[in-house]
């Protein structure tokens, strides 16, 4: 039977194509930041891609709530932190098991080649800092966010933010000390 008349109808849509393209564009632009944040938050290399995709799905779901006039990174870091924390709670262990061995035996060989030794060292040491304090440390020392903004972003008093930074710095240095000098003290 010949069909010479066909009507193309509009399917009731999910997110507007333009909107979800915007979301995708932000995702694309901030991929380095997102991946880096996840790794700094201790997500193992083998899990990064799945956790990263979870972030994208959260971004899509919450896109309407995101005020486009404000910078993306605070919003994205919050999502990354929550998703990474949730990932850990579900029983995925962090990069380090006991913190003494600098090798990440679960990293793919090619990923190990891509990372510098310095980077692996830092990421390993970061796992010694508990998540709440690590967030402040990362935001301040890596993302260079002013402390007042960090406090606002994390909804904590400014003094609490400083207090966490202080402890985190000490914890990071202690961990580095063990890793670099091969100290016998376990973390």
């Amino acid at each position: 039977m010949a069909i010479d008349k066909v009507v193309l109808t509009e399917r009731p849509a999910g997110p507007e194509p333009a909107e979800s393209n915007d979301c995708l564009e932000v995702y694309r632009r901030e991929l380095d930041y997102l991946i880096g944040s996840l790794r700094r938050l201790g997500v193992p290399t083998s899990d990064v891609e799945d956790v990263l995709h979870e972030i994208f799905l959260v971004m899509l779901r919450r896109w309407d709530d995101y005020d486009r006039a404000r910078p993306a990174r605070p919003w994205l870091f919050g999502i990354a932190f929550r998703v990474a924390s949730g990932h850990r709670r579900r029983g995925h262990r962090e990069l380090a098991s006991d913190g003494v061995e600098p090798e990440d035996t679960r990293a793919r060989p090619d990923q190990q080649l891509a990372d510098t030794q310095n980077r692996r060292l830092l990421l390993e040491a970061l796992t010694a800092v508990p998540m709440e304090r690590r967030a402040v440390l990362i935001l301040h020392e890596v993302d260079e966010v002013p402390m007042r903004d960090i406090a606002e972003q994390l909804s904590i008093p400014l003094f609490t933010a400083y207090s966490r930074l202080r402890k985190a710095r000490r914890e990071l240095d202690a961990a580095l000390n063990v890793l670099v000098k091969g100290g016998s003290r376990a973390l």
Partner: protein
Amino acid sequence: MLSKWLSRLSPTARALLAEERASTEDEDVKARALARAEAALEGERWSGVALRRAEEERALALRSSRRRGAVLAGAGAVVFAGLAVAGVRWAAVGTPDLESRAPATVVTPPPPPHGKVLVDPAPASRVEAAAAPTDPAPIASVAPAAPRARSSSAKEYAIELALLEPARSSIARGSYATALTAIAKHQHEYPSGQLAEEREALRVRALWGLGQEPAARAAAASFRKRYPRSVLLSWMKSAPAP
């Protein structure tokens, strides 16, 4: 003093953190993340085709192979990412009605992405032109793919997929003209390949996205002729009489 109380980081820590600030991530990881994000978006869109992850693809591949009347050797043994119907929610929508109908009203086409107006947006309803397609998009005649060794078939499938994936992602981005280029390339290399049906579905979608309505309708009509049982483009309907 605040800085004393805060206790400065060691030089080692400061140096490592400075490096971390400058670090970039693995390009392959990024590329895969983007492809996956686009695929997720595509599932939300009304494009009619979507890429799925390899694990999800197994069941669909089996289903589609039955649809084509071919038998995949070693059921389930071949796992590959492929094109498939997007979104369960509208697999059930729009069972194609093959009878020709009287001229019907046209529903407003969706707005093109990025705010570009490619064609004057149609008013709420108008009467469809009654002409039969005069010059359908050139489509090679379809012969059922000859049975091939499983390994070469899977390899060729992968090549076909690599050719068509740019078309799919272009459509996801709203770059319909770019999609047609990739479609033409696949047509040239694999005119009756394993993904010919998906290609033609993408073609309809791309033409529609470009606002080339007559060409889109012609391609849709040809598609229906060639693949009457296809579940792709299930969002396409024949119009009921007004």
